[in-house]
């Protein structure tokens, strides 16, 4: 039975148990003639939980873990058949067996080993599925029976159900922690393996990045050089250009909207700017690569500048556009949070409105604005699609925004897209870059939080 069918079976069993439990407790109460502790609904829910919860967990765990076990057993089987395969060849063989199993490998490519492996694999998959159905359904029925037996008018069904509900909630909120742990562990684990082949210092401070095929056999890492400085420099440059666009426009529009604009203009302009935030990044990427970049290149040629068609300028400008709404809406919030009394005080001293804003409101809102800019920077550094589509792939170490540069995120995508063997330094390098990215953005976020907490002044 397939997992979705089993899942539906369990849901059905749960619903049935609920109805049956609710009916049974009514009968029991009527017979005993005592006052019920919990309402019918809780007795029904109790039986449903008994019937469905444990099998559901087992179903999920089984479906998650059995492919691992089956793959390990298949590898073991194939290893016994032909002991002298390398790890890479074994991977290819396993992939072929699976392809043959689903029928996507043509008969002509199959040999006896693949056929034997497929038979073995098919038997394993089949047995696992049968055993899974059996265990899950048996446990479900046993659970339902046990739940029904426990029902009694004085049985405290409500606290029991509520306790289960609370545990489920705790597990749900722990997923957030698990995700963080998962991110950190998977990145660190792969990064450490990367540092087995490429020294940390070379990665962090090397000036040349070309992760292609090795030119010489004895080359470090066996596949090109992994000095990430050009990527960091490229990321910094594009982020810097983006901030040059986004900070003035975002900040000034926030100031104007919160201090000068009448409600009508505000009602139009604020959602208008927020539309920019809702546009998917792939759209900005397309816009940068097919509209802005050619336009910049042509107008550059008019005035005698040579722009690369993948210039840092185009990617940075469009990324700046994407960042505008972040800066403007976050700044808008902090400017609105400055108490009116400060403005009134400045006006009473004879300051014009712009003097009030520049000398009173903005300084008071500064921690919030700085934190908004830091958050926007973290967003720009982690942004992927715009740079993948509009920035270059070659790692140039340059300070000229008209040339093409590459970024950390572009390289992660380039290293991981397409066919890949999982253990090569190339693939692992992507995880090392990911770890750097994760820590830099984390640092910026924490810094943004710190700035607000440390420098915010309580006015009221």
């Amino acid at each position, binding site marked *: 039975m397939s997992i979705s069918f089993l899942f539906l079976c369990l849901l059905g069993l749960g619903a049935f148990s609920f109805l049956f439990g609710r009916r049974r407790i009514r009968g029991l109460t009527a017979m005993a003639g005592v006052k019920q502790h919990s309402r019918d609904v809780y007795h029904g829910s109790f039986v449903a939980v008994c019937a469905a919860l444990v099998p559901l967990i087992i179903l999920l765990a089984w479906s998650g*873990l059995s*492919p691992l076990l089956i*793959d390990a057993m298949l590898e073991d089987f194939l290893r016994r058949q032909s002991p002298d395969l390398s790890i890479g060849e074994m991977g290819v063989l396993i992939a072929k067996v699976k392809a043959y199993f689903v029928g996507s490998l043509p008969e002509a490519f199959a040999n006896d080993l693949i056929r034997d492996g497929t038979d073995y694999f098919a038997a394993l998959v089949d047995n696992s599925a049968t055993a899974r159905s059996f265990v899950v359904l048996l446990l479900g029925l046993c659970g339902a029976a046990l739940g029904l037996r426990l029902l009694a008018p004085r049985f405290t069904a*409500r606290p029991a*159900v*509520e306790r289960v*509900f*609370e545990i*489920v*909630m*705790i597990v*749900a*909120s*722990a997923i*957030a*922690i698990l*995700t*963080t742990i998962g*991110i950190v562990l*998977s990145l660190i*684990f792969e990064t450490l393996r990367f540092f087995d082949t490429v020294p940390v210092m070379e990665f962090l401070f090397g000036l040349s990045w070309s992760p292609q095929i090795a030119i010489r056999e004895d080359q470090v890492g066996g596949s090109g050089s992994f000095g990430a400085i050009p990527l960091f420099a490229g990321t910094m440059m594009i982020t810097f250009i983006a901030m040059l666009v986004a900070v003035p*426009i975002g900040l*000034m*529009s926030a100031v*104007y*909207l919160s*201090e*000068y604009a009448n409600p009508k*203009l505000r009602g139009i*302009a604020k959602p*208008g*700017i927020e*539309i*920019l935030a*809702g*546009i*998917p*990044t792939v*759209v900005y*990427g*397309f816009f940068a690569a*097919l*509209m802005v970049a050619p336009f910049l290149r042509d107008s550059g040629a008019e005035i005698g500048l040579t722009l690369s068609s993948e210039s840092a300028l185009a990617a940075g400008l469009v990324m700046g*556009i994407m960042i505008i709404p972040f800066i403007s809406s976050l700044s808008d919030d902090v400017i609105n949070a400055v108490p009116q009394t400060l403005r009134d005080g400045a006006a009473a001293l004879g300051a*014009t409105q*712009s*003097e009030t804003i*520049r000398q009173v409101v903005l300084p008071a809102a500064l921690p919030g604005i700085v934190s908004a800019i830091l958050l926007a920077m973290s967003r720009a550094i*982690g*942004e992927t699609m715009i740079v*993948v*589509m509009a920035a270059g792939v070659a790692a140039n170490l340059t300070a000229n925004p008209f040339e093409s540069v590459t970024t950390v*995120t572009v390289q992660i*995508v380039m290293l*991981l*897209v397409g066919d890949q063997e999982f253990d090569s330094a190339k693939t692992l390098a*992507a*995880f090392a870059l990911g770890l750097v990215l994760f820590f830099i*953005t984390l640092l910026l*976020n924490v810094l943004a939080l710190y700035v607000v907490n440390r420098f915010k002044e309580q006015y009221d």
Partner: protein
Amino acid sequence: MTDYSDPDFRAARLKKRYQAEKRFRAYGMAAIITAGLILVFLLSSIIYSSLPAFSHHHVRLDINISEDYVATDTPEEGNYLGLVRAALRDHFPQVTGRRDKRALYKILSIGASDAVEARVKNDPRLIGTQISLYVPLSDDIDLMLKGLIDRNLPESDRIVSDRDLAFVDKLAEENRIERKFAFALFTNGDSREPEMAGINGALAGSLWTLLVTLIVSFPLGVLAAIYLEEVAPKNRYTALIEVNINNLAAVPSIVYGLLGLAVFINFFHLPRSAPLVGGLVLALMTLPRIIIPTRAAFAAIPPSIREAALGVGASRTQVIMHHVLPLAMPGILTGTIIGLAQAAGETAPLLMIGMMAFIVDVPTEVTAKATVLPAQIYMWANNPERAFVARTSAGIVVLLTLLLVVNAAAIYFRRRFEKRW
């Protein structure tokens, strides 16, 4: 030493200050106008460049469905392309050489035979008769007829040769060429040929992926939010979870892609390119974006409601399930819809787990190979063929329209059910 009692000085200074005021206002106005112009320019340029993709030039051919090409008893195995080509050849009896014939065939789309095939399979009695049918022209001819390739350029500078031009002009003289709505854009899966490429497969992939995302992230997000906002004691453990969730919301999406690759694909051996894995990755990414607005929705419900329920003897869980949750539902749904809309536009993490494969078939389950609409846009944008520019823009227009509808629904929900306490 400035003399503030000098009236001229005071007037001059005041003038300067007022000018500074005006300038400052102008800067603000300029910033807003710039942002607005950028938005208008971005949207209008994409819509403008998408327009050619919504129509395509077709040619009307009188097709003899002869038994030489399609056998009566096995219409599935018929040579429909040969059929269409024969019909085209009949219009140009003067074309005899093999190379000329091949050039002639090239003005038709590779998919020209699809319509005939569908007609004949639907009604096998047509075999042996003649039907008149519109079939699509190739993308280059189509671009030229739309005026996107200048036919006045010297022959060496354009894709369409003089010979092709003569063929097309003759068909046009006979009034056989017509511009029709490009249904293929919405009904087909991906294709190497621009005129046959459609977004149907990517849309289905997006739907499956978002379905997984919704099923996983909505219950988990709401349960976690209930726990953190309503149940949990305020201790170090819950403070840790809170900081965590806020940080997760700011982690770059590509990092989630790396997580998905390392955990779901390399550790759990789930299939690559599958909506199941894509949905799980997006679910992890969307989770904090559901938890944060859901908590805000809970926090906005006045404590008096909880106290009243507790006062008449409800348990804590009953307070939540019977009162707080139903009242917070509009806010929760709005947050969920906005979170899903963001997930629907996400590309980078899905590239990591291979959801940008070239897939012609429409996926029908969560473990089938699939792509999503933004990834399809990315792939088309990378395609050097000219006609794909319009296809890409058309894909973007569809994506933006969907997101607009979804976000409008969220705003409607908020307006319709919002309560002020």
